[in-house]
């Protein structure tokens, strides 16, 4: 019994439509299936019969058959043993071949001598050619080595110069980056909490909000008792670019110890490190004199 799938494979196989792998697998199946083998044969014959349906308007040339027949005759001749027909031998036929052979040997001897002479000549020429080539090769190698050494020296110099330039550029770049980073940090608004210093009222506290770009700020103080008569609290900005703290003005608290004051340092404070409140003479001083009561670092 045969399945449709087997019939289909047989049809594809008969028309050579299978890949090599598919055909190999099918042939394996085919080898053990007589009925399938018969079907493949029938389908292949049916497919081949289609060649008969092609209209035969043109025939192969007569010359083609002659060429094919000549070729097979030639092939047949190559494969067949050669039959040699020998004539009857006579005294003359014995002597003459020997004479020819002797003459041939003599001739070969002369040729051999000549060949030896030629071989020597060729060897000498070959040797001279090889010496010349060896010399040329040596010269080329020396020149190559010199050029290579020069090239390597120049390369090393260029590499050194390049490395130096690169290091310089790197250093410049790093410095610029650091500067930019510091400038950016310094220009950002900051919020600093001020805590009591030693000897100051323990509950006193203050918060400073300062914007370096506008150089303005606000301080909010609480729990700081009012300054004694003849005294005032003064706010200071400690700046890295200034030797002394920069005054940001006098701050007065109310009866509850509270104050909220806007301020502007008397000089530009670009690199603020801390804010502090000190107790100074009434009206404030240009340079800090009194004790620090509250302080907060950035």
């Amino acid at each position: 019994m045969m399945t449709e799938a087997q019939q289909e494979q047989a049809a594809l196989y008969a028309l050579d439509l299978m890949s090599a792998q598919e055909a190999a697998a099918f042939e394996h199946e085919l080898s053990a299936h007589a009925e399938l083998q018969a079907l493949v044969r029938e389908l292949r014959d049916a497919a081949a019969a289609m060649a008969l349906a092609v209209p035969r308007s043109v025939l192969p040339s007569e010359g083609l058959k002659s060429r094919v027949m000549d070729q097979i005759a030639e092939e047949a001749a190559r494969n067949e043993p050669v039959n040699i027909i020998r004539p009857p031998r006579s005294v003359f036929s014995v002597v003459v071949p020997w004479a020819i052979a002797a003459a041939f040997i003599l001739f070969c001897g002369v040729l051999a001598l000549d060949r030896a002479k030629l071989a020597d000549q060729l060897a000498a020429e070959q040797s001279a050619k090889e010496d010349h080539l060896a010399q040329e090769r040596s010269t080329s190698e020396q020149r190559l080595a010199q050029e290579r050494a020069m090239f390597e020296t120049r390369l090393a110099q260029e590499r050194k110069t390049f490395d130096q330039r690169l290091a310089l550029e790197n250093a410049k770049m790093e410095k610029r980056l650091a500067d930019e980073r510091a400038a950016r940090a310094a220009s950002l608004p900051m919020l600093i909490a001020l805590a009591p210093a030693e000897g100051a009222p323990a509950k006193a506290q203050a918060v400073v909000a300062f914007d370096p770009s506008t150089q303005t700020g606000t301080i909010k103080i609480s729990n700081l008792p009012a300054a004694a008569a003849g005294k005032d609290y003064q706010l200071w900005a400690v700046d890295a670019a200034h030797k002394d703290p920069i005054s940001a003005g006098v701050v007065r608290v109310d009866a509850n110890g509270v104050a909220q004051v806007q301020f502007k340092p008397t000089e530009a404070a670009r690199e603020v490190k801390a804010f502090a409140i000190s107790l100074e003479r009434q009206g404030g001083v240009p340079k800090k004199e009194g004790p620090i009561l509250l302080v907060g670092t950035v």
Partner: protein
Amino acid sequence: MIDPSQEAANRQLIQRIAAGDQQAFSALYDRLSGPLFSLAMQMLGDEAEAEDALQEVSLQIWRRAATYDAERSKVFSWAVMMTRSKAIDRLRARGRRQRIVAGSTDEEEGTRDYASDAENASDTSVRNDDAVRVRSALRTLPNEQRQAIEMAFFNDMTHAEIAEQNSEPLGTVKARIRRGLMRLRDGLQ
């Protein structure tokens, strides 16, 4: 070639060729060269190339006659498949396959000209009878089945290529090839 007596004669010739009989080869050449050349012409579309292909196949028959296996196929089928294979090699080697395929599809697939049952005067009456039988068997096939097996046989198109060209499922094309070929076989028996 379909006629059993013709096939028997072909086999006898092949046996003699295997033994080196050049006269037998000449006789077989006379019997097969017409249809083989027509097939090569149909596939290659060039007379010189078709002659070259036939020359190669003829030499192959001479050299391989001893390996011919009557259990696998008829002598005629063996020679046809060798010719088809040579023609395909040439088509592939010269990159002309696309052109031939395109040309064949332009002439409307399924309308291959089998109209003329009358052959060239050089054909023998036996060959004419065979051709008539094959053509009438092909005409009994549904168009899509005939088209599928012709595209595969003459145009060297795989079932996948036929499916792609006709925008049809691969399974449908495979089934058509199977049905068409089996029906052709039945029609020729």
